[in-house]
């Protein structure tokens, strides 16, 4: 039987506020345990939550950038359960009326575009952390993270493969960073995905029983976990079994998912509106103001790159994967009008490769767009070859000669010989010295031509403009 995988994703994006969602404590990462937990975070008797406006602002921005409805009012609700790192015994979240409802995100897999619909996005507080190591026979509780603002972004079950799921997650990841609401740091847990996976016979309209997979803190794990889970479910169904609705945990070491709790064991969270927080009303004028201040979004920019600059969907997608990359690209292109493809190739190739190698971000790129444009302009005007340009690039990266491309070309003697007379002289010398190969070529041995080109290049120490060499050589051999 042919199976279809159906995936929905829930993402917890930690918002880039200074302080917690309901208290004034800092949310900076890496502080000593419980040094960023005040009376409210500790849930002392009598303390009350006060909503952080910055968190609301960020939720609205997300809503606006996915074309969603901003609900006013939206309601904060209590999700009740006992756990030592949940100090109040309930988590303040949103249940029946989330702040963001609907909207969609377009994803690009190869040259195909697909729309992933969002169900909702709601504000909530994070829990603290239980530390099970370091304490013999006891657990430590760190409440620094308790109350960190999260936006939970939930999709419809619109994805059909782990690849689509990863592309969606990456697109969302890029969007939240693009609009500045989340730093996207997956290692620190600022961007966490859970996947709801089910399978069904291809062509079927009804959804299969789903399992929710938690603990997916990288795109690679997201992909592997979905693949494993889909295989597991298909095997069970093909053996005549049925799927139990449950929450499963992905174990990256074993590359498998395992049951955490079944639906029957799930808590009755007894959601009800939090009486400490009044319904959240959002002024339309504020929404409009935030909308006006929103930057051009990656999706819009991607299509602009395709129509205005003639870039492929792939190139446009890569260049708009982060706002900083797009800015870098545009700043380079501004100084090199009409050379979008050349700029794109170098940014996606040399620059990106070198950044990866040095494990750094484009914001820390040692070569500025102006400097890169200066280098690329020397390729396009024929001053240097592409190969020579890579040598110049390396020198610039290392900060040589004030990263001045022309100075480096000069110092390294990388200028191409583009003088017809000079090249002709070389060609004549080579032809004279290689009578046998000339004869071979004339007898139909094409390979001999390449060898002759090589000889000329060698004679000019690689500096001759290869196109000119080709042209002149061909002309000479035909006469």
């Amino acid at each position, binding site marked *: 039987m042919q199976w279809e995988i159906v995936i929905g994703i829930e993402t917890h994006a930690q918002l880039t506020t200074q302080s917690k969602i309901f208290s004034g404590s800092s949310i900076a990462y890496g502080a000593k345990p419980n040094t960023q937990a005040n*009376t409210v975070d500790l849930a002392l*008797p*009598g303390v009350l939550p006060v909503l952080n406006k910055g968190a609301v602002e960020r939720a609205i921005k997300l809503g606006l950038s996915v074309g969603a409805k901003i609900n006013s009012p939206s309601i904060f609700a*209590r999700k009740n359960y006992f756990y*030592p790192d949940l100090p109040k015994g309930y988590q303040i979240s949103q249940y029946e009326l989330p702040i963001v409802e609907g909207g969609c995100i377009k994803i690009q897999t190869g040259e195909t575009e697909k729309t992933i619909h969002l169900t909702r996005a709601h504000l909530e507080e994070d829990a603290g952390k239980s530390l099970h190591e370091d304490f013999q026979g006891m657990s430590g509780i760190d409440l620094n993270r308790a109350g960190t603002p999260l936006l939970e972004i939930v999709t419809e079950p619109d994805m059909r493969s782990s690849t689509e799921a990863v592309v969606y997650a990456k697109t969302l990841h890029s969007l939240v960073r693009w609009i500045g609401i989340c730093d996207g740091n997956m290692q620190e847990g600022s961007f966490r995905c859970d996947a709801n996976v089910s399978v069904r016979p291809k062509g079927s309209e009804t959804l299969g029983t789903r399992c929710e997979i938690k603990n997916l803190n990288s795109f690679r794990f997201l992909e592997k976990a979905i693949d494993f889970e889909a295989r597991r479910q298909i095997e069970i169904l093909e053996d005549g079994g049925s799927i139990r609705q449950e929450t499963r945990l992905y174990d990256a070491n074993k590359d498998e998912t395992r049951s955490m709790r079944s639906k029957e064991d799930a808590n*009755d969270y*007894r959601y009800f509106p939090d009486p400490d927080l009044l319904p959240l009303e959002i002024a339309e004028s504020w929404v409009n103001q935030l909308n006006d201040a929103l930057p051009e979004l990656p999706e819009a920019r991607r299509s602009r790159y395709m129509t205005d600059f003639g870039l492929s969907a792939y190139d446009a997608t890569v260049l708009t994967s982060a706002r900083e990359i797009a800015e870098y690209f545009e700043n380079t292109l501004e100084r090199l009008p009409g050379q979008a493809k050349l700029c794109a190739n170098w940014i996606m190739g040399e620059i990106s490769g070198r950044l990866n190698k040095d494990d750094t971000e484009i914001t820390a790129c040692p070569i500025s767009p102006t400097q890169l444009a200066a280098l690329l302009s020397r390729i396009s005007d024929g001053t240097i070859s592409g190969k020579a340009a890579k040598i110049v690039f390396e020198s610039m990266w290392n900060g040589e000669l004030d990263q001045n491309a022309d100075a480096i070309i000069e110092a390294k003697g990388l200028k191409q010989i583009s003088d017809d007379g000079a090249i002709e002289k070389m060609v004549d010398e080579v032809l004279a010295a290689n009578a046998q190969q000339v004869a071979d070529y004339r007898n139909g041995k094409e390979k001999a031509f390449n060898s002759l080109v090589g000889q000329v290049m060698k004679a000019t120490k690689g500096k001759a403009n290869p196109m000119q060499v080709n042209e002149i050589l061909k002309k000479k051999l035909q006469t």
Partner: protein
Amino acid sequence: MFNASLKQLSTQLAERKISSVELTKEFLQRIKTLNAEYNAFITVNEALSLAQAQNADQIIAAGQANKLTGIPIAQKDIFCAKDWLTTCGSKMLSNFVSPYDAGVIERFNQIGAVNIGKTNMDEFAMGSSNETSFYGPVRNPWDVAAVPGGSSGGSASAVAARLAPAATGTDTGGSIRQPAALCGISGIKPTYGLVSRYGMIAFASSLDQGGPMAKSAEDLALMLGVMTGFDARDSTSLQRDSEDYTRDLEKPLSGLRIGLPKEYFAKGMSKDVECAVEQALDEYRKLGAEMVEVSLPNSQLSIPVYYVLAPAEASSNLSRFDGVRYGHRAKSYDDLNDMYRKSRAEGFGAEVKRRILIGTYVLSHGYYDAYYIKAQKVRRLITQDFVDAFKQCDIMMGPTSPTVAFNIGEKSSDPIQMYLSDIYTSAASLAGLPGMSVPIGFGDKNRPVGLHIIGNYFKEAQMLNVAHQYQLVTDWHQRLPTGID
């Protein structure tokens, strides 16, 4: 001095006829002598009180005194006060010394009032007789066999026995008004949102409201002026200009339209209470007020609605008492769940457990719509009744409690009878309206009767005026229980 009004005390302090330290010592001495009999205080801390009194004397000497500077005030043990044991009447918090001040405590501290001690109360404010306190029942100064009412029974008893010039209380369904009535003192629960709930240990957040308890309406007005005001740390706190609640005290009452909800004068009220209420209304007629019959058709649903919503909120509010970070933790346990189970089983008393169970039940999957949502809808109907009735009158009156104080032990095994003590007060709480109780005489066994005054939203000044005018022509509020002299 112990029977002086706040105004008199303030004058004495300002004229340096007495110092705050002397005054504080006098009340500390009274508490030392009499508290064993009434059990009105859970915690007295002479060192902390006297330090505040010394500070107050300096403020007075510097000429920066406010009306209540240097005056000892008893604080209900539901308000967190820095360095004070703050128990909320529960074993669960019997070891909890608060590291911070509640908004209300802060406001008293700012003007240099003296915290004379933390008063006894029903555990987590759940009760109408003060019998659910882990620290034992409070006794009614008018008759030590009788309950003082609850949950602010300690505050009511302390003021009635003149162990403090005034006290704070909190009211969720009648917890200021009912004990005020049963102890023959005055008490007001302001409009929901006027007094900060920050640091006031939550019972039912959408209903809880702090307020003063004192010997007279005039004293209440002074206290209320200190207690009310916007607090950014409480999202339900209202942003309003501060008010002088004494401003209308002297206004004549001619032309005042007093609404008498007919449902409150139907069956349920005992004869002695009815008699006292009728006499009080006659007094108001003499003062020039006219009586208008109004109707609150849904008010009979207020007790069932209250006992769905308040426990629902409480069940969640009390989840933080889990033995993990502070408060009572069982001595031995097998694992985490066992720790939770034992700590909460040992830390909470029977009434608190009953309400947590009710609240958990009504919020449970499958029951939520039938109970919680339904109750919220009825709550809106009850509120609408008041809005409609206030179109025909300026203020409403009725009995605060259906009976005078009952005996200790009389209703403690019958929760429904106990819950009905709040039958007249809970509707105003559900509507968020201000309500107050003033003493209007005595009923069976010479126990006090209170008149319930319900005002429209933010009409506290008017209510205090209405009560004060009555107190100018009557002396019920000046009567002292036997033995208090």
